[in-house]
């Protein structure tokens, strides 16, 4: 029977030969990821109430990233609670090393064909590695931790086929903002999105992660990319086994498929105006909008490749005197690599402030939250009203390249102007 990539992974997890689109099945979870905000502090009382033990501690990874450097007593308490819980329960733990969606794959926990849940909506990031990974709330997570299972409705697949070639300075983030505008924040209909086409094949693993990550903003359950040689090489390089990755792709003429075609060659850098990612426009239509803060951060906007392109733009430039540039590398590891390659030095020379490797202001945490009436351009995923700070603050979403160019120019501008020279 012909199946989509989503069907193949679900049927494996449900121990079935075939699953039909629309069917509700119970699937075994290969891995569960939780963080300090939605994790131990929330699941622990539920597990106690249930009188249940962890189904399998070796299949649980905990990452502290939300309350890291929060500068508050309540935040420190939550972090300490997380540390104690991990010790007691003997699970894998990455403490303050970076954002869960970046740390998890970098440490080799995600491999093609896995069925994974995460206690965070951007868990869709795992789709970049050919894993069926999606976000759930704490109560459902407690259920998974106790039983090792979860129900899932086998989704339809929405194929987003990007042919052509992105022009220099146009990034995966621009693809996503464009898609948010085109399809809307419910365009994914809580089904499976799968990215395909030459433009996707050309993307680095980091850039693919941005697509899968922001599939959450399209309202999809997952944002899959069929594994290829690049995926296998990435995993091999970090010492993980890519396994039988060649089995995981969508069959021709599988049922329940809807396909949309896009041309990457004509895509301009995109900017989403306040207060929704779906308010995206080509940068040329809102150039010269003034902002006070430029933020390069988050799982979707401060991975190594994000930092790298931003640094190319900032090199030999100074940040505009009316702008503050904040850079929060997505993980300690990415920051180290960026330091080794001279990227962090470029940020410092340009006058950027370097913030801790955490979710930080993207999720409204930490000391650098936006003050009243502040206007900010940000490489993050969501610009909902009040998300990044005060309810009167305003956020424009853009690629790290556009954020960097804006930081130099002083108002929103096209990053391609800085990459030509």
């Amino acid at each position: 029977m012909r199946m989509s990539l989503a069907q193949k992974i679900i049927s494996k997890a449900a121990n079935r030969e075939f699953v039909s689109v629309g069917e509700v099945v119970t699937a075994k979870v290969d891995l569960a990821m939780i963080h300090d905000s939605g994790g131990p502090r929330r699941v622990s009382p539920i597990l106690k109430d249930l009188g249940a033990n962890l189904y399998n501690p070796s299949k649980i990874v905990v990452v502290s990233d939300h309350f890291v450097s929060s500068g508050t007593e309540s935040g420190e308490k939550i972090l300490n609670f997380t540390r104690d819980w991990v010790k007691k329960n003997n699970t894998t733990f990455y403490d303050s090393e970076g954002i869960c969606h970046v740390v998890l794959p970098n440490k080799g926990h995600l491999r093609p064909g896995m069925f994974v849940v995460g206690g965070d909506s951007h868990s869709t990031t795992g789709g970049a590695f050919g894993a069926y990974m999606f976000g759930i709330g704490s109560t459902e997570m407690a259920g998974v931790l106790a039983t090792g299972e979860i129900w899932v409705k086998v989704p339809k697949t929405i194929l987003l086929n990007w042919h052509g070639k992105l022009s220099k300075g146009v990034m995966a983030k621009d693809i996503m903002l464009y898609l948010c505008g085109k399809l809307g924040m419910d365009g994914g209909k809580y089904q499976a999105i799968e990215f395909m086409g030459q433009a996707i094949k050309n993307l680095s693993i980091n850039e693919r992660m941005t697509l899968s990550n922001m599939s959450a903003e399209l309202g999809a359950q997952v944002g899959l990319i069929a594994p290829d040689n690049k995926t296998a090489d990435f995993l091999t390089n970090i010492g993980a086994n890519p396994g039988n990755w060649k089995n995981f792709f969508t069959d021709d003429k599988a049922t329940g498929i809807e396909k949309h075609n896009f041309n990457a060659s004509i895509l301009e850098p995109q900017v989403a105006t306040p207060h929704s990612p779906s308010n995206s426009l080509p940068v040329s239509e809102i150039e010269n909008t003034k902002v006070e803060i430029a933020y390069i951060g988050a799982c979707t906007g401060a991975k190594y490749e994000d930092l790298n392109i931003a640094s190319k733009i900032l090199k030999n430039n100074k940040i505009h005197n009316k702008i503050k540039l904040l850079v929060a590398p997505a993980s300690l590891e990415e920051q180290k690599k960026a330091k080794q390659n001279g990227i962090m030095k470029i940020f410092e020379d340009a006058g950027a402030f370097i913030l801790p490797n955490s979710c930080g202001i993207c999720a409204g945490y930490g000391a650098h939250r936006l003050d009243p009436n502040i206007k900010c351009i940000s490489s993050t995923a969501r610009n909902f009203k009040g998300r990044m700070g005060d309810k009167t603050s305003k956020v424009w979403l853009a690629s790290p390249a556009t954020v960097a160019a804006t930081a130099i120019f002083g108002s929103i501008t096209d990053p391609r102007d800085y990459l030509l020279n």
Partner: protein
Amino acid sequence: MAGKIFLLGNDIDTDQLAPGRFMGQGIKKLSEHCLENAYPNFPKLVKRGDVIFGGKNFGTGSSREQAVEVLKFLKISVVIAQSFAGIFYRNSINLGLPAVVCYDNLHVQDGEIVDFDLKNNQLNLIEKNKSIKLESIPTNLMEILNDGGLIPHLKKRIK
């Protein structure tokens, strides 16, 4: 049970329901800021049994369960919307708060008194003496809801 309708628009996100900047401060504090932009004074106006009636993609955004918890804390009896964001929908059922799809939001008004009838999948508009149809909740989720949420449901199973 009768309650009044709070009519909301499309894409009510989790930061409007439970703002990130208050996430470390407990459910009471979060609830004081629930819908502060979308429906000013909502926490003060809402009474036990009241009904949320949202537009499309209700609960979009984060997986934070507090977005449902604040509504339960404020004694909302049901969330009705033209469509739901997937994670919010699962969270709502898991916490025992009925989340029900209704495509017809043209015949309800903000503030009107309604009676939510889960058994017959309908919303009775008391003042107008008529009712509108609600979509039924899938069987596997109805079982969870009937038990009062995922935890009581699992307790039965684990026993």
